[in-house]
């Protein structure tokens, strides 16, 4: 068996297999500074979603629910195809439907984008996560949530440039697409790609998927989509879920897909400068107090101070009470 599966279409072997993704394959681990280097480099994988081939059947959603054994609540129809209305802790992928009028042709275009975790090479969720080992990244590019380490703080929600993680109200842990890491670990492609009837979702090595996308883009360009292109945003170091978009010059028309996603500078400041300057400031205050405490004489009340106070009290008590303040401020 090769180190990473090359396709999602093959059927699983009948004999049991050991998992090919383990702790030794981690390249990043949240809130862990001394992670040992991975023992091998797996071939990077990618899921390629060709929005121009998608028919909006939601087989991918069903396959996702089926494989991950989640049970999304029965929804409510509010007159749009997007169902459920948003990603949830039980719905890791979602077809987002957009009706867009192309200003240059005046044609109505029905844009359908399968939303879900993009598996960023530079994952904002992992960077923001405070819990050691709650978010990991494998050398094949998969970013995965390890639920038993998750504390439910929601920092990953703030770190993510794509608004993907959802926190369960039931167990207070974060959930998102795993890129079917448990299937990939045994040589299978993701469930959504396996289920897709038009092969709008394909899976394989990132190299193969990029090459496959080139063919699709050339085809789209020959059909008049001059701006067709591959969405593999460099702002997050590239992603292991990529889109072929017929309007790659304006990704935002696809249900607010970010044009130039990157980890928010606010998050970078929070997780970078604030942490180092903050720890230094608190350490400096503590050390400063300690040094002052050791080297400066304590500020003691002297005998003379006590005598002065006694004298003040004794000499004034004999005199009459000043009228203005006699009724003011009784003990309360």
């Amino acid at each position, binding site marked *: 068996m090769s180190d990473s599966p090359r396709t999602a279409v093959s059927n699983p072997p009948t004999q049991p297999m050991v998992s090919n993704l383990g702790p030794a394959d981690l390249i990043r681990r949240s809130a862990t500074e001394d992670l040992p280097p991975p023992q091998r480099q797996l071939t990077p994988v990618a899921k390629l979603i060709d929005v121009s081939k998608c028919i909006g059947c939601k087989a991918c959603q069903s396959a996702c629910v089926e494989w991950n054994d989640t049970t999304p609540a029965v929804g409510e129809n509010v007159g749009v195809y997007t169902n459920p209305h948003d990603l949830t802790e039980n719905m890791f992928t979602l077809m987002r439907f957009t009706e867009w009028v192309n200003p240059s042709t005046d044609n109505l275009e029905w844009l359908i984008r399968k939303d879900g975790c993009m598996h960023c090479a530079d994952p904002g969720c992992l960077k923001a996560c405070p819990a050691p080992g709650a978010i990991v990244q494998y050398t094949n590019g998969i970013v995965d949530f390890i639920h038993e380490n998750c504390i439910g703080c*929601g920092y990953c929600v703030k770190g993510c440039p794509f608004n993907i993680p959802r926190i369960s109200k039931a167990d207070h842990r974060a959930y998102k697409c795993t890129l079917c890491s448990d299937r990939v670990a045994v040589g299978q492609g993701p469930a959504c790609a396996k289920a897709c009837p038009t092969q709008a979702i394909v899976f394989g090595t990132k190299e193969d998927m990029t090459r496959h996308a080139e063919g699709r883009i050339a085809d789209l360009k020959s059909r008049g989509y001059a701006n067709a292109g591959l969405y593999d945003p460099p702002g997050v170091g590239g992603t292991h879920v990529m889109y072929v978009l017929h309007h790659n010059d304006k990704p935002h028309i696809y249900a607010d897909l970010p044009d130039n996603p990157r980890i928010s500078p606010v998050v970078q400041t929070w997780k970078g400068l604030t942490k180092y300057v903050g720890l230094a400031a*608190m350490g400096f205050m503590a050390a400063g107090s300690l040094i*002052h405490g050791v080297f400066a004489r304590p500020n003691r*009340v002297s005998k003379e101070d006590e005598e002065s106070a*006694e004298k*003040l*009290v004794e000499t004034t*008590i004999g005199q009459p009470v000043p009228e203005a303040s*006699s009724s003011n401020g009784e003990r*309360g």
Partner: protein
Amino acid sequence: MVERIQPGDAIHPGKPVTVDRYGVAARVNHWITAASLILLALSGLALFDPSLFFLTALFGGGQNTRAFHPWIGVVLFVSFFVFFFQLWRANLPASVDWVWLTRLKDVVTGHEENLPEFGKYNAGQKVIFWSMAFLILVLIATGLMIWEQYFAPYTSIPTRRIAVLAHAISAVLIICVFILHVYAAIWTRGTLRAMTRGSVTGGWAWRHHRKWLRELVGQRKIGPAE
């Protein structure tokens, strides 16, 4: 401007003179605030940097730390602001506060003979009081925004990013203010008893808050003999 004497402040003549500074309720409340702040600092620091994540063990793990922290914050907010409304008048700035701030050298070296007489609070105590009040307001406001369990849907993610940054910065600052507050109370000997027994000696009042002592004496705030 004559400072309003705080209700409860009173002199007990004797050798030494003692001066009531905080009543029982204020002291109990102070220690609730103090305990909350310490617990908040420990649980907050645990999530601030991975090297401090081990502190979550004090609260029974990461999930519990995440769950308890905001509730302790609510306790701190309430207890501090009960305190705030008792003390804010006495912490209004006075012209003499500028002198204190410009002669910090005399303050940290303990040369109080070079300083003018102060009321119940000096400028340093007032700075701590108002910093605490301001930072706690920022912390509770931003803390509610990032309270994932109950309040996450009410603000946008970009707003919550700013909230979490502001929360972290304010937390660092309030921990610094807290260290200053605790250290000043220890270094200035005879201060801690104000928050344990509720009273200070006349000499302490004479040395550090002579104007306050003079006002109490002048207005005959004499408590029952001990």
